[in-house]
């Protein structure tokens, strides 16, 4: 089955001054793909996500979102970001707003909904992540897992075509990662296209349609989870995945 890709990266480079972080990344993502990005820290996984939603645009190379080249000059970046949801490692919930307010503010300010519509949709999104009963809580009154689920609801409210997750469970206590991964798994099953930077290998095996292994600013290898975990072609991929998988077996993972 061939479909038009939802996201296409062509030779993406990113430098910060003298530091060359991404050195030519090309990647094609189909609708409903769940891509898990793995690799040693400092290899540019998070940078790649921030390039894709133009929070820090690539220094070279092109990115297409659906049929639009979003790296072309004159593109309205704010409009592009509305179609790309992003979830951060440290949640970044708006501290002065309740859970409900966090979801609503984008609906009223960006999508220009009226209060009533925004309220209804925000409650729906909070329901999707199982937090309707926390709607009037402020971020400081929520657990880490709940904060991250509110952050997911906030992103979903914008009706994104692609969701990016930047180490969504790294800042969480181990017993709280499950509730976040569950929500993400459910999203994947509903057909949301997702790119996830994560070291949760159990999640990667269960949910990913593809694993992408990055190192040193390049994509070293990509493939379906079975192949990547059980028969990787590249020596470095095997080493890395073995290392973090055995780490999990020692009781560190889910």
């Amino acid at each position, binding site marked *: 089955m061939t479909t038009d890709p939802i996201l296409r990266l062509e030779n993406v480079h990113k430098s910060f001054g003298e530091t060359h972080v991404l050195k030519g990344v090309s990647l094609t993502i189909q609708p409903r793909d769940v891509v898990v990005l793995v690799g040693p820290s400092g290899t540019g996984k998070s940078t790649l996500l921030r390039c894709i939603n133009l929070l820090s645009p690539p220094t070279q190379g092109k990115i297409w979102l659906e049929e639009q080249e979003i790296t072309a000059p004159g593109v309205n970046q704010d409009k592009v970001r509305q179609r790309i949801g992003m979830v951060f490692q440290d949640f*970044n919930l708006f501290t002065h707003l309740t859970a409900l307010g966090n979801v609503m503010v984008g609906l009223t300010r960006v999508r220009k909904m009226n209060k009533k519509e925004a309220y209804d949709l925000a409650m729906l999104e909070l329901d999707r992540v199982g937090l309707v009963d926390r709607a009037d809580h402020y971020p*400081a009154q929520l657990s880490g897992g709940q904060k991250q689920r509110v952050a997911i609801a906030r992103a979903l409210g914008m009706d994104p075509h692609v969701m990016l997750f930047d180490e969504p469970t790294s800042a969480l206590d181990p017993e709280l990662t499950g509730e976040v991964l569950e929500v993400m798994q459910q999203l994947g099953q509903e057909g949301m296209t997702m790119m996830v930077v994560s070291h949760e290998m159990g999640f990667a095996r269960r949910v990913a349609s593809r694993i992408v292994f990055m190192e040193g600013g390049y994509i070293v290898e990509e493939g379906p989870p079975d192949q990547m975990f059980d028969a990787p072609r590249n020596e470095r991929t095997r080493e890395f995945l073995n290392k973090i998988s055995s780490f999990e077996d020692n009781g560190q993972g889910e």
Partner: protein
Amino acid sequence: MDILQNLLTTLEFIIQGLWITVWVTVVALVVGLVFGVLTALMRVYGNRFWRQVATVYSVVIRAVPVVVIIFILFFVIAEYVNLSPFLAGSLALGFASGAYQSEIFRGALQAVPAGQMTAARAIGMSKVQAIWSIVLPQALRLALPAWGNEATLVLKDSTLVFVVGVPEILRRTQQVSARTNEPFIAFGAAMLLYLGLTLLTTQFLGWVERRYRLQM
């Protein structure tokens, strides 16, 4: 004459200046708030040009005594624009307070974690929208304790407008003192009024602070 009776009569006369003091303070604080927030935004988010404009404002105004600014507005500017002593005085105070408030709000804007702006941009807000509905509301809350302090300073600085003849508390106190030749009673009454006003202000702002405190 009975000292208490004397004090009450004095208070009765001085207190007519109370509302003028309150209004001078309120106008100055509001003008200062507008100037302070605007110049703080210019300094944190503006380009080179706006940053410099705001910095020059803040540096120059803070280097000049408030009374000088009041005189400039009253004697120089009022030549061209019709400014009452009340307006000249409160505008000058506000203009001066704006420079101090600029520092307060600049610090507060910078204290809002960068992730807040990033997250706002990530849901498709423009930079202006993100500043207006995410960063600024948090910065204003963070600024409240320092701003409350500035408010009490402006309240006390409002005495300075007496140099251009605005009949606020201090001006009236002087009139009483000159007529009755009992400065102790006159200035004692003024002191009580200012004490009451300051306590009321800090109580009120303390309440606002608790009500809108940011939980991090």
